[in-house]
């Protein structure tokens, strides 16, 4: 009786021979399933990053180091050591920039390899390559804003002064801020 039972099972297993295996894709070249939200390698948009340091603070494994920039306002930009990162996505969640996050994992790559030596892994970074021209342009921009601010402050002072003196302030004394933002990219 048991033997017959077993033979039945064997025949049922044998029926699988006609089923096509799901492994038809060469996964070396194409991933099997790669959703839009897949948390893979980071991409860091240095332009929109405001340098708020939130991602660094939340990261549970301290994978993020902030690269210092010679800028004043956006003085830091995150860099991620992929060897350390556990791809939890908290940094992406916490990033305040809108509409798109400036530190982005979604849709990242899935194969992240490096040499196995400890030293190799230590410099397995997602670097932000900030072209010098960008920094310069930002510097100039900053300079411009600074100048603008100073001017505004001056103006405010002047206005205050004028107010104190009782003069009319509706018309600016100086106008036409020069456009420095060209050539940012």
């Amino acid at each position, binding site marked *: 009786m048991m033997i017959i039972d077993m033979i039945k099972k064997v025949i049922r297993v044998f029926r699988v021979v006609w089923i096509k*295996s*799901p*492994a038809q894709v060469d*996964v*070396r070249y194409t*991933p*099997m399933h790669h959703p839009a939200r897949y948390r893979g390698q980071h991409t860091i948009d240095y332009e929109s990053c405001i340098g708020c340091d939130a991602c660094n603070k939340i990261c*549970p*494994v*301290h994978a993020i180091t902030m690269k210092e920039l010679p800028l004043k306002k956006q003085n830091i930009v995150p860099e991620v050591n*992929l*060897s*350390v*990162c*556990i*791809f*939890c996505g908290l940094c992406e969640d916490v990033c305040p920039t809108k509409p798109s996050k400036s530190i982005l994992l979604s849709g990242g790559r*899935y*194969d*992240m*390899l*490096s*040499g*196995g*030596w*400890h030293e*190799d*892994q230590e410099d*397995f970074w997602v670097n932000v390559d900030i072209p010098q021209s960008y920094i310069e342009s930002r510097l100039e921009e900053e300079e411009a804003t600074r100048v603008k601010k100073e001017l505004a402050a001056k103006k405010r002072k002047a206005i205050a002064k004028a107010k104190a003196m009782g003069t009319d302030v509706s018309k600016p004394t100086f106008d036409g801020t020069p456009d420095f933002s060209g050539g940012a990219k």
Partner: protein
Amino acid sequence: MLKILDFFNYAQSESLWMAHFCTGCCSLEMAAAMGPRYDWERYGYLPTPTPRQADVLMITGLVSKKILPALLRTYAQMPEPKYVVALGACSFDGGPYNDSLSVIKNPTEILPADVFIAGCPPKPEAIIEGLEQIKQKIKNKIPSAASQGGLWKEMDF
């Protein structure tokens, strides 16, 4: 003669057998890579029950202090030539457990790996991709990393 040696070298590279050893949760994805959807046997990988017949040792993530002797001994008991693959953030610096009391913070410094696959855990695709790299290494006759150095040589286990 050289041709024959080349053939054996090629054979070595195309048939990598894994020692059956799991130290951390990355072994779940290793199981997935064995499974029907990824099926690493297509590329010639095969798990073996004892390290005596294995070519590749996988550090599957986390290495706690207590399991390190077992890991090193398993590695030492594999026959030459042998290779090591490190999976996951844990095998670099303890990953999410970096602040924890009982994990080894530098497994790859102790036992250098030939390929490190980042992720937590890495996708099965990534694991297979990493193993392809080892194939390339063998074909180019690059000696395995752990035989070149690493703290394990000075340790007593």
